């Protein structure tokens, strides 16, 4: 068991990033009752933006973070008004096909513009390794984990403590009475998409520091984020953060204890068990 610390520490930091990816998904789900299947494909887009800013303008991911996050926020608002708004109140299948359509669109555009080759950011400012207990981790991974946790916490704080955050919660809990106190539901939905894509965009920037970038990079993250949201409870931000970390740990542990090829089998089996036993997740209040 000499590598157990290594496994736990890398699982933990990966999980923190999963947490940040998951909160945007959870937020949109909680507020609009809608699953954004293209969530991680928007992250892929953010990874490419980060890569392009680095390779064309020499801007390190550390500095392109605010730029990419702001751009993704705008893209989220735009996506809401151009696409999503038109399927609100529609059938579930309409909404599902709509965001699936975005998956195909985003991946195809990426393939067309940047080819299917794997890209990587060479020697960003944050590079090299660091020792944590007996584990050795890339600095990029550590920065990604810590910054993700911080950002996720900040978003939670905004929702819990600010006037606009309360308006978001109110919209999530009763979208019919929110307008009766003067809340514009349409704007809240747009805001949820903005925050959702900005947060997953930030995760994309962090990942770009040490992860390969290619058009289908979102797929695995999307599934893991869905598992985290289901575990944490639909719409629960702290739930998504904790569950994201749990998924990271389970993934790493099962890869180590059983067989790397089976790590997702364990994660997704757990997902099925939770859906059967506790459909609202562990922090969920949604009915």
């Amino acid at each position, binding site marked *: 068991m000499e590598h157990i610390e290594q496994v736990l520490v890398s699982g933990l930091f990966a999980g923190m990033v999963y947490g940040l990816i998951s909160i945007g998904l959870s937020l949109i789900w909680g507020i609009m009752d809608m699953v954004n299947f293209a969530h991680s494909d928007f992250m892929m887009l953010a990874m490419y933006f980060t890569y392009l800013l680095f390779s064309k303008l020499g801007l390190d991911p550390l500095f392109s973070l605010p730029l990419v996050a702001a751009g993704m926020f705008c893209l989220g608002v735009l996506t809401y008004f151009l696409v999503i708004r038109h399927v609100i109140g529609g059938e579930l299948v309409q909404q599902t096909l709509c965001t699936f359509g975005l998956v195909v669109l985003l991946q195809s555009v990426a393939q067309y513009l940047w080819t299917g080759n794997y890209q990587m950011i060479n020697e960003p400012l944050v590079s090299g390794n660091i020792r944590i207990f007996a584990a050795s981790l890339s600095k990029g991974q550590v920065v990604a984990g810590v910054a993700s946790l911080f950002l996720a916490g900040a978003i939670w704080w905004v929702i819990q403590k600010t006037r606009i955050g*309360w308006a978001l919660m*109110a919209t999530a*809990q009763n979208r019919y009475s929110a307008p*009766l*106190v*003067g809340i*514009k539901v349409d704007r809240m939905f747009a805001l949820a998409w903005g925050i959702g894509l900005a947060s997953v965009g930030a995760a994309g920037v962090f990942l770009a520091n040490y992860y390969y970038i290619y058009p289908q990079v979102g797929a695995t993250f999307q599934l893991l984020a869905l598992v985290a949201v289901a575990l944490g409870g639909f719409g629960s931000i702290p739930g998504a953060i904790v569950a994201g970390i749990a998924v990271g740990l389970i993934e790493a542990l099962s890869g180590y204890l059983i067989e790397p090829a089976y790590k997702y089998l364990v994660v997704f089996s757990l997902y099925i068990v939770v859906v059967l036993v506790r459909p609202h997740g562990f922090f969920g209040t949604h009915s």
Partner: protein
Amino acid sequence: MKKNETEAAKAANYPEEDLSRLSRLLRLEKVSSGYEGTNVLSDVSLYVDKGEFVSIVGSNGAGKSTLLRTISGTVRPRSGEVRFEGRPIVGRDPADVVRECRISHVPEGRLLFPRMTVYQNLMLGAFTTRNKKRKEERLAYVMELFPRLAERSRQSAGTMSGGEQQMCAIARGLMLEPRLLMLDEPSLGVQPNIVARIYETLEKINKQEGIAVLLVEQDIHHSLRMADRAYVMQTGRIAAEGRGAELLESELVRKAYLGL
């Protein structure tokens, strides 16, 4: 501005009815409204003056709730006009009606934010007010009106009893500092002694603060007795109007609602 309009209209020698149209707080003219294909309201005309207490009674399905929704803008009328202080408000975003006209709609079934605390629900009632101090003062006022809410301020709104939730919904509506308070069946699912207390409070708000009240009820005894004026609705139309106490004695109401 409103006064000028009235004077200009006077100068132009408009008929008497047009003058009153301009000075009403709320006025509906031949409003027809409903949902996807079905007409619920047909040609409804009514008005509420400043500081007035107006009741609308009618049986289940008469269109009372649709009427309030049409005023607050959550349902869009097919035809007719809704004016608040002389300005047309049909087609406005409901959130703008709240913000600009300060019409508070306390909906049927209360529709609180169930997993937020009573305090959060109340503060959201003043969502359009940005001045923090003003919000706190208003909060103190509504908590004085409903002391029970002060005791429960940290409790999730959805876990309270029906009566407490109704108080919370009315208090949330009052946080807006409304010029018109519309209530949809506040007695529904509330135990009788609390209903009486809620009505007392409504009367107090109307008399002390001068807030106009438009009350929709199935329970005709209380609501007609309290009202300055009242309307009786039947299958989407206004069947009668008059002073509340008179209507309670009228043939129509006695036949239709008291089974006499």
